């Protein structure tokens, strides 16, 4: 039975929605949106915060007791930079969890598969729980799983585009083949996109732009919470499978007898 519970490396989370903290108009609005979303995992760009300073304005708005602060390495152009950032966060006292982002292209922020893999290898060996942001590449997902990342985070569409699940065929393969949680990250622009990802079988979704840039971010966060929960309930209810042909209510072969 599908449980409305996300387990990553043995750690349990009630919500399957993760939240990003960029692009909000203020840290106060961000804080309210996080609360409304029901998320328990909050990712923060390390480049945005003074990680060693608990009084940092952004960090102050995130209750570390309540949320798992997931530092991300956005801005890193290669494995070396990403690893350095992750180590910095751990040295500053963060839990050894890291959302690995290696995005050399500053415009579409598309992940570099080779550098991401290299960084993941190093960080896993150093004891980090690595959640890598990647393109929706089923083979890369298996390779990352083999080296010990705790999730894979394939994109639905380029970051910030709100285009939804444009990589759906590959996402289906990834979900089918994965032994670790699959978190659909990037591109989710509407609650219906998030629900669709969960209905497809994704273990969780990560949303940022769609909430942060909404007219009312707090209301939008609530909407995403409800959409993800609705999809969870639907999965629990047993999603009817897609079929190529309709089931006739009067079977065509009903006249056949044993």
């Amino acid at each position, binding site marked *: 039975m599908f449980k409305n519970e996300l387990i990553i490396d043995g750690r349990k989370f009630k919500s399957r929605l993760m939240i990003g903290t*960029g*692009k*909000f*108009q*203020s*840290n106060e609005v961000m804080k309210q949106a996080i609360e409304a979303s029901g998320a328990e995992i909050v990712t923060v760009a*390390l*480049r*945005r*915060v*003074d990680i060693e300073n608990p009084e940092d*304005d952004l960090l102050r708005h995130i209750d570390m007791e309540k949320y798992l602060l997931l530092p991300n390495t956005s*801005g*890193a*152009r290669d494995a*070396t*930079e990403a690893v*350095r*950032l992750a180590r*910095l966060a751990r040295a500053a006292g963060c839990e050894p969890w890291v959302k690995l982002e290696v995005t*050399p*292209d*500053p*415009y579409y922020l598309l992940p570099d598969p080779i550098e991401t893999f290299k960084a993941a290898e190093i960080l896993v060996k150093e004891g980090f729980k690595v959640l890598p942001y990647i393109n929706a590449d089923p083979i890369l997902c298996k390779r990352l799983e083999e080296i010990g990342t705790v999730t894979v985070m394939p994109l639905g569409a380029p970051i*910030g*585009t*709100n285009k939804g699940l444009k990589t759906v065929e590959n996402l289906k393969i990834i979900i089918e083949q994965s032994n670790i949680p699959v978190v659909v990250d990037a591109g989710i622009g509407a609650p219906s996109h998030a629900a669709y990802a969960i209905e497809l079988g994704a273990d969780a979704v990560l949303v940022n*732009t769609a909430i*942060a*840039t909404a007219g009312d971010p707090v209301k939008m966060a609530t909407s995403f919470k409800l959409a993800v929960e609705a999809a969870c309930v639907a999965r629990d209810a047993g999603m009817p499978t897609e079929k190529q042909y309709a089931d006739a209510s009067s079977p065509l072969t009903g006249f056949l007898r044993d």
Partner: protein
Amino acid sequence: MSFYDEISKYNWSEVKDFIYSRKEPDVLNAINKNALSLEDFAALLSPAAEKFLEPMAKESHRITLQRFGKTIKIYIPMYVSNECVNSCVYCGFNVHNKFKRKTLTLDEVKLELDVIKKTGIKHILICSGEHPKKVSVDYLNEVVKLARKDFSSIIIEVQPLDENEYRILYNSGADSLALYQETYNKDTYKEVHLGGKKTDYRYRLEAPERAAAAGLRTIGIGALMGLDDFRVEEFFVGLHARYLMRKFWKTHITVSFPRIRDAEGHFKPTYLINDKNLVQSMLSLRLFLHDVGLVISTREPAELRDKLIYLGVTQMSAGSKTNPGGYAAGEEEGKQFEVEDTRSAEEFIESVRKKGFDPVLKDWDSSFINAV
């Protein structure tokens, strides 16, 4: 091949004629497109587009919100020297202008940094006149190392350098370059740069490429608005930005729109650039290149800056002093130009907040660079 070769394919007056020949349907077509061609960009810069600034503004706001969110990155300049060997007719630092010249000692730099860091802004722009001896790479290197202790992002706005010199500064912690071509018109460039190394149009034009090749992460370009026809200038700014984005795909490009301000020497700009012209330039750039950073400095007055926040700008300076020693020593003399937005950094940051935007004081971490 460099951008010099690229721009050499264009003829200034032909481009100008093309821009001025654009009609309303060309403008409407461009506004409604997703991916704009150079021809579309020209249409947005044309006089015909002036009637459509409102829909352009709405589109620019929408794109900016999607790509950057409700955030404004804040930076603060620190002038380390007003000594200069060039003779640029529009600039207060012109070698022929008579005023007290000064290059900060490293101790004075430390004092300046101490005052600036109290603003909480972590992005610092190191500015100077162009005096390769007084403001040498060695000197700049020491300044960058000092700044790196308290600032997470260091932007340099100094004389164009060789690639290996940019690499030295990058390795010490500088991550960004701001370097304006002033004018992309070669003939005008010659007329306004009368002496000094800056007379070399090509060396300056190719500097952003040398900096990007050396590893610098953000490159800021722009034309000094008022030296020539802004529509043509901004067309070439856009062409330059697109060229750099495609060639240096790991480098983030920003565009500034500095208008000539009153300075020592009291140069009167050849072309008067009104607010409408400035806004049209910004909006056209945003619609043409969705992801470039758009920068507005304190050259612009407070009331205008407050309104520009909604139109696509992504980066703004705050609390600027444009002379060496302007912060710690309270020096008033030797400014490059008069600042129009005279609000303190704190006042400006608060004003951004009140407008419903997040003033981002830190968006970079120096640990990205394995500085020595």
